[in-house]
């Protein structure tokens, strides 16, 4: 809700402060590199004239990664956090502020590829080894620091207080139900003997996804990065689950995959199917979380953009559509809060079930 209101208010003010005819282009002007990208076709077809609003670009700008963090705009002024670039190109390591790469400029033989928005070597066009602190990396660091602080504060509360005499207060009271929910889920799905070994990983995955999902809904800095809607992040999470499952798999689990108890003619086929299914589990985990969160962000941004598309159809259309899109935006944000929790829960639940299946001892 805050995101919708804030973005719409900011953009309306921006639209009003710039002279007529040019008003809607300010968003695209702010990043000329992206604005010139030819393949960004607007799905709503508003890019008929050069000056028109490019909805697709705004949306992709918000959900994508970047070397700078655009925090706010006021008229022609933009509050931008330039993040450090760390690359290893053919000429060695380069560490500098992304300010030097603004507007397609090259620096130390590097520039931002206008098509893909990634750093390339200026002369050869090769992609260097790039571990820059991008917008998503910064958001990741922030959310992980927050997670560390919150969980360690909770743990400190339990160290310093006698749980038998006091009920948890403050942050401990907030975190305890979440952690115990995952802990109990682990016990149910993995089994009484060794769920304790896997419970910390599941708690970590759950809280990590939950924190980042909610921070993604927060519209202003340092939230608003689309971290759980980024396939690299969800892929790493799914791979952690995949390796946990397969490293701690029992003999019985591997026998089920490579030598299942099936009729003779199925013997050669079953291992292929089983291995394929084991491989598909992390893929499905990756895509499920990624697609859900990405779709949520795109939906909310699209609804907000309706306001700016309607601006050229006059005050009546703009007013009525603004009301509708704000109402719809509120609904979508509430929905996203629900989805944020559900997706964290589903990911953890499936991980625990996969681990539980790999830990079976055989009947």
């Amino acid at each position, binding site marked *: 809700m805050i995101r919708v209101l804030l973005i719409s208010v900011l953009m309306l003010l921006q639209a009003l402060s710039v002279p007529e005819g040019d008003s809607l282009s300010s968003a695209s002007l702010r990043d000329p590199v992206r604005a010139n990208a030819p393949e960004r076709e607007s799905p709503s077809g508003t890019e008929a004239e050069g000056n028109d609003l490019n909805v697709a670009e705004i949306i992709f700008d918000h959900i994508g990664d970047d070397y700078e963090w655009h925090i706010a705009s006021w008229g022609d002024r933009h509050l931008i956090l330039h993040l450090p670039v760390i690359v290893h190109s053919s000429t060695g390591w380069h560490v500098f502020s992304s300010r030097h790469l603004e507007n397609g400029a090259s620096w130390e033989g590097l520039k931002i590829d206008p098509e893909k*928005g990634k750093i390339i070597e200026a002369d050869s066009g090769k992609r260097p080894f790039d*571990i820059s602190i991008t917008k998503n990396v910064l958001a990741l660091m922030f959310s992980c620091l927050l997670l560390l602080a919150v969980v360690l504060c909770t743990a400190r509360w339990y160290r310093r207080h006698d749980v038998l005499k006091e009920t948890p207060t403050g942050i401990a009271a907030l975190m305890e139900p979440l952690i115990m929910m995952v802990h109990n889920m682990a016990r149910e799905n993995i089994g009484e003997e060794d769920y304790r070994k896997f419970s910390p990983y599941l708690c970590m995955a759950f809280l990590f996804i939950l924190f980042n999902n909610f921070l993604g809904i927060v519209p202003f800095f340092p939230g608003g990065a689309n971290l759980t809607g980024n396939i690299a992040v969800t892929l790493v999470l799914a791979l952690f689950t995949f390796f946990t499952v397969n490293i701690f798999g029992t003999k019985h689990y591997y026998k089920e995959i490579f030598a299942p108890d099936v009729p003779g003619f199925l013997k050669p086929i079953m291992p292929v199917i089983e291995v394929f299914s084991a491989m598909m589990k992390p893929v499905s985990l990756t895509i499920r979380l990624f697609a859900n969160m990405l779709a949520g962000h795109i939906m909310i941004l699209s609804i907000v953009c309706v306001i700016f598309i309607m601006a050229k159809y006059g005050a009546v259309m703009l007013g009525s559509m603004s009301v509708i899109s704000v109402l719809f935006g509120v609904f979508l944000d509430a929905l996203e809060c629900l989805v944020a929790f559900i997706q964290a829960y589903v990911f953890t639940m499936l991980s625990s079930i996969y681990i539980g299946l790999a830990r079976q001892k055989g009947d």
Partner: protein
Amino acid sequence: MNLITPDSGLLFWMVLIFGIVFFLLAKFGFPVITSMVEKRNETIEKSLKDAKEIELKMTEMVQDHARMLEEARKEQAQILREATDSRKQILEQAKTDAREEADKIVTEARARIADEKESAMRDIRREAALLSVGVAEKILREELSSEKAQQAYLERLVDEVARENEQVS
């Protein structure tokens, strides 16, 4: 497309940061919390079980108490009844005793009165006999003072005896 190609830099940072945070939290965070909460849960479970047992005991005690109360009440009632009975009996006894005593006294009194009466009557009779003998002496002395009167009396007596004899024969 950009969106579905995992970016190497983000992959690197994600593995690094997630790994570090996971290591720290798995060591100092989650186990502390879960073990403490489990400890608390066990205590609560135990307390609940204890409470249930105590409740059971309490119920038994209450039942015992009620039973004892009931018994005491019964006993009390019985004692009261017995007391009433014995009081009645004592009263009855006392009455009977009193009646018997009274009867005895009355009988004795009656007997004494009868005795007194008897002796009084005897005295009176003796007195009366003495008086009548005296009176008869005096009368006879007066009437039989002359020869003639003596003769006449004798004759009459003889006649009477003779008449009586005739009648008998």
